[in-house]
């Protein structure tokens, strides 16, 4: 197991340390495939805005809310589905850092390093994919292996039920939309409520799908070339970061 200067988060930090969740976007190149791309620059601008003035540009959305609320359920589901015996969904997460990057994997037991991605609904769940469908997440997992010294990791997409409160909120919204829709003009509110509740629950609850089909696990091996390229990109980002910092 390779362990490269892994230290805890409160170590002395240089000017810019990337987060594992950001690294995928920072790795995006321009069309030539050789230089840093616009997506990466935009990500850096967001980081500078936050670091300098505390301005958050990624405000929480229903997509992030689901992931946060269902994280433990997702870890339990992926552990059950994969037969992981030493993964505890209630275990406290540990933040790792080195000179370039910092990250907090969802699962880091002795045998398993993994990250959970809660698909918002069935349309965004990779039912049919056989290889990791998202390069950005792949870099995130590479960064965790870089930080922990592990040689394999797992990216797990999990199709959890929508939290009940979010279902109720959506039903309320759907009812109000229904009341304004001429298609439902001959129905009263209670009738629309029944229809909307059935509709929302059928789209946002997945208990009828077997557990093993609701967890899609992609094994990602450590790739030292990718880790080296991340290191080089962070060095490049530091210059741009400093430049952007001085601009505002």
């Amino acid at each position: 197991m390779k362990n490269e200067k892994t230290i805890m988060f409160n170590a002395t930090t240089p000017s810019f340390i990337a987060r594992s969740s950001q690294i995928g976007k920072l790795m995006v190149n321009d069309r030539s495939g050789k230089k840093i791309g616009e997506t990466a620059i935009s990500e850096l601008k967001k980081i500078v805005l936050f670091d300098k003035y505390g301005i958050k540009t990624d405000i929480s959305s229903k997509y992030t809310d689901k992931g946060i609320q269902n994280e433990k359920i997702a870890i339990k589901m992926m552990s059950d589905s994969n037969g992981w015996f030493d993964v505890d969904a209630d275990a406290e997460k540990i933040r790792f850092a080195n000179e370039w990057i910092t990250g907090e994997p969802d699962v880091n037991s002795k045998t398993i390093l993994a990250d959970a991605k809660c698909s918002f609904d069935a349309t965004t769940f990779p039912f049919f994919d056989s290889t990791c469908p998202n390069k950005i997440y792949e870099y995130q997992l590479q960064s965790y292996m870089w930080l922990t010294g592990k040689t394999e990791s797992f990216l797990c997409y999990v199709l959890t039920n929508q939290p009940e409160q979010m279902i109720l909120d959506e039903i309320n919204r759907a009812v109000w939309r229904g009341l304004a829709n001429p298609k439902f003009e001959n129905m009263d509110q209670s009738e629309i409520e029944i229809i909307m509740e059935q509709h929302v629950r059928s789209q946002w609850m997945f208990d009828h799908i077997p557990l093993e089909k609701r967890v899609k696990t992609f094994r990602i091996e450590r790739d030292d070339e990718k880790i080296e390229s991340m290191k080089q990109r962070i060095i490049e980002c530091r210059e741009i970061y400093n430049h952007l910092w001085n601009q505002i």
Partner: protein
Amino acid sequence: MENQNNNGFGFALSEIAIPQSKQRTNLFTALMKFQCECQTIPKLKNGFGYKYAELSKTMEIVKPLMLKHGIGFTQMLHGNNKITTMVFHAESGETIETMFEMPNGEPSKQMNTFQLDGARFTYYKRYQLLSLIGVFTDDDLDVDSRKTNQPTTETKTPSKKQKPKLDDQRFINAIKSVQNGEYSIEEIKKMCDLTSEQIKSLESLT
């Protein structure tokens, strides 16, 4: 729809007709085990001027446990106003059942005749089933816990941390971890709730 009886079930207990002649040892044993494991069903749904335990939510909680103990149920409508609920033990074929004659409701501005029928069928189906299988509903949850602790089977977490039992796949992975030197046999024994057979297989690795 108001409850006409004071027993909280929405129908007179005398309506439960259980023939006394047949033996139902298997069914009653299974039912008893089911009752020990089944939690109180929270009343979380607001509607019709009161709170109630939604049928779909109720089913989410009771169905897996009924399945676990080999019990099932069926509910039949007879004509316009009679409803029968039968609980059965699948393996032995033993049954208990109850029949109830539902009172008629009055259509209103909020509900036409069909909606009213649907609502009262659902209402009595829920109460009849819960009564027959001996499960209670509760509305003592406070507002905050209602917001954060919805009664889905997924969100239920045990209050006391127990050692995990290992199914076949997990046990295979545990053995691999010993072979790879990630865990010692003693560590696995300490961490997990193993069967005597699993302990035996594990110890045979030395």
